[in-house]
């Protein structure tokens, strides 16, 4: 039987937005999801290592940075989950026939990732409110390190389940054999040649992005503690640099694991794909050069240059990832064939609300930033006031 015969049909309804707009929102949404998601995974790994390395001296920068990572992780997790809604929505709309099919075929692990997420998320809070509550000595550090390792295993599992599904949705020829083998959803896409290199590629990237995050912590502390700030900038740059250099062979491995025709598209076979790929390589070089210098000198401007080029690099890579998906899904799944009836009224409301939300978030961030940068106890702390009164 031909593969395309059981690729499901789209619902008999028009799309509410043009396909190009939904694709843009899918890419933009995934970009905003990928950044915090990388920090969540990489941060739990690097946090575990740094807690362990800094265990002997809790006043050391190593320990302090581990603690800063641990404390900020819940925010990154929350941000990653919330930002995941957008790509998930547009992935379902645009490529639902492929995405729903593969999700159902591996339903059990797919659904279990949410349970793993809840547990890992609560571990993140457990570390803050229980483990680090009595912040003394090596024992606390080792305990925190162990919990971070457990949490990182959770995130690694979630990442693996995602890699399995995102690759399975692209290969419809595998669906029927897997489903016939187990209709209860107890399947994975482990025989996929690109699975391991793809997964490793994402893991190394999460380490690199966490390096950048540590550098950002350094930028945040510039005025408060110049020495610690420079230390963080250098360390962050080094982690980024190491991971990105390692990414070169890993990336090549990933590229080699693709089917010949898809790989060729990156090597000049498709102008647009190759163009984006070359741009990403150029951005990678810029970020490597910039962080190579900032890792030695702690130069803030160069770090920022590295940071920006890395952000753009990730965006370019995400566009490439999207193009790769299209190569796989063409000609089986074609959202372009679905009729479009744009809901202009709702689109206008949505755009206005988006602008309003951005303005609100800017206002809110400034409020919070000021709250943490006002040293004078101008405002009374209810908790401390109460302690004083009792």
């Amino acid at each position, binding site marked *: *039987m031909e593969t395309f*015969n*059981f690729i*499901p*049909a*789209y*619902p008999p*309804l028009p*799309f*509410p*937005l043009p396909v190009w707009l939904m694709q843009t929102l899918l890419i933009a949404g995934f970009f905003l999801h990928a950044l915090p998601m990388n920090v969540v995974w990489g941060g739990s790994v690097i946090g575990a290592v740094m807690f362990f390395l800094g265990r002997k001296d809790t006043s050391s920068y190593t320990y302090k940075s581990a603690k800063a990572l641990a404390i900020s992780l*819940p925010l990154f997790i929350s941000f990653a*989950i*919330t930002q995941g*809604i957008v790509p*998930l*929505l547009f992935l*379902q*709309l645009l490529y639902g026939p492929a995405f*729903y*099919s593969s*999700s*159902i075929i591996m*339903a059990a692990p*797919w*659904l279990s990732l*949410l349970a793993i997420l*809840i547990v890992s*998320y*609560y571990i993140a*809070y457990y570390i803050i*409110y229980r483990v680090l509550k009595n912040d003394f000595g090596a024992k606390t550090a080792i305990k925190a390190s162990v919990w971070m390792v457990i949490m990182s295993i959770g995130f690694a599992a979630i990442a693996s389940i995602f890699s399995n599904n995102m690759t399975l949705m692209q290969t419809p020829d595998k669906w*029927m054999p897997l489903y*016939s083998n187990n*209709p*209860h*959803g107890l399947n994975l896409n482990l025989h996929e040649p690109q699975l391991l290199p793809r997964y490793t590629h994402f893991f190394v990237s999460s380490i690199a992005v966490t390096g950048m995050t540590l550098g950002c912590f350094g930028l945040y502390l510039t005025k408060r503690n110049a020495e610690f700030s420079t230390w963080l900038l250098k360390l962050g740059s080094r982690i980024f640099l190491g991971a990105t250099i390692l990414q070169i062979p890993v990336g090549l491995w990933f590229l080699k694991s693709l089917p010949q025709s898809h790989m060729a598209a990156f090597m000049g076979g498709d102008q647009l794909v190759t163009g984006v790929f070359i741009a990403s390589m150029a951005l990678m070089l810029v970020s490597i050069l910039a962080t190579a210098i900032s890792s030695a000198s702690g130069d803030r401007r160069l770090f920022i240059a590295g940071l920006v080029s890395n952000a753009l690099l990730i965006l370019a890579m995400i566009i490439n990832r999207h193009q790769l998906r299209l190569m796989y899904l063409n000609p089986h799944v074609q959202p372009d064939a679905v009729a479009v009836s744009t*809901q202009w009224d*709702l689109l206008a*409301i*949505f755009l206005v*609300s*988006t602008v309003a*939300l951005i303005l*609100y*978030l800017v206002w*809110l961030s400034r*409020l*919070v930033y*000021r*709250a943490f940068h*006002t040293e004078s106890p*101008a*405002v*009374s*702390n*209810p*908790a*401390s006031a*109460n302690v004083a009164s009792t």
Partner: protein
Amino acid sequence: MNYPLWVVPVLGGTWVVGIISIIHVYLSHFAVGGGIFLALAEELAYRRKDERMYEFLQKHSRFFLLVTTVAGAVTGVGIWFSISLVSPDGIHSLIQSFTLAWAEEYLFFVAELATAFAYYYTWGKISREQHLFLARLYAIFSVFTLVIINGILTFMLTPGKWLTTHNWMDGVFNPTYFPSLFIRLLIMLAIAGMYALITSSMIKESKFRTVMVRYAAKWLLPVFLLGPVVTIWFLTQVPQASIETIFTGIQTSGVGNFSILARALYLSLVLSGTILIFAFFGPYLNPRAFTFRIALLFLVCGLGATASTEWMREMLRKPYVVYNYLYSNGLHKDDVASIAQTGFLPKSKWSRAITDSCKDDTASGEAIFRYQCMSCHTVEGYRSMRKLLGARDEDAIMSLLSILRETDPKKNNYSGIMPPLAVNSEEQKSLAKYLATLNVAARGETEKVSALPNDNKKKPE
């Protein structure tokens, strides 16, 4: 039918969605009601300059944050995940019709979460006026998440004019939109009160604990006073056929005069009534004796009430996912008549692919069973076919299926609760053949019983 069908043994796919949804409803209602609670309680603390209350609210808000932003948020995604596994056609149509409503919901969700974090982390770090402002903002944003999602939830029960216009406004602002919005708000306030009872019961200082327990108990009052009125308003907007289903039930799903739906309704009423009466006589009139354990008991009762109410709401919609449009097994209402002629299996991709690989009738019968029955039944477990078939032989099953194929409610007494069976005659035979393989043991048992002397005979079902 368009998609591979996820076979969940014993529990059935619906309960996977059901369990996640019930947990999520309980947590998300707390997220909204609790937001209003925090805003109003903080205003009280501000006006009274009550430091103890501030201290309590700071602790309560950590509990609030941990419950709503982690389990609350993730189970919300969980509903989405699970529905897309159990009824992909339904969810695809739903998000395609309401994409931008979904997107708008996301914006409020971002605002809500960002405000929750800002609110929690700035305790004692910004002025009290600013902090109170954040609390109010949070309450407003969280109410707006309800304002949007309520449109999509109620749409499924009462799509109203959308069925003809396919306009999103008609879909969102459908006949049960407003009554449902008010009921949910009332319930949210009550749930917020119940969660606050938990944290209040943990206050060490007895005098202040008494004050807070009593204050939290008051939050159950609005639903007590207004709940019945709004429920009646809601029920007047629900399709009358569904209301009849609640009280009359159908032959196989009810016992005696109590249909299963009526039982769920009474359970929900009894549990809610118990909570309210106990809240009045317990924490409200006698707050001093209130303990953490009793508070937990309230929470468990609340979960029971939520579960039975939400279950009943889902059942009200039977046999549809979108009332009068899409059946719970993913079949479009309009397609049933043509399928009776052309057959079901060739109609859609996966069912056809499965049939093509089928070797015999039983296998294609199983494919039909999966696509048309398994959205509500399991082989052995929830609404077990083995049990429901009893000792029927293939011929008896054939006649039952013939009744199920009828679209006229007078000829098919299951029509209020089950989608009509959409198959042609040949497929009906395959399905009967397959179903007859499920209850072989029961038939064997009956045959043995019939071989016994007369006085030991049991009546077959």
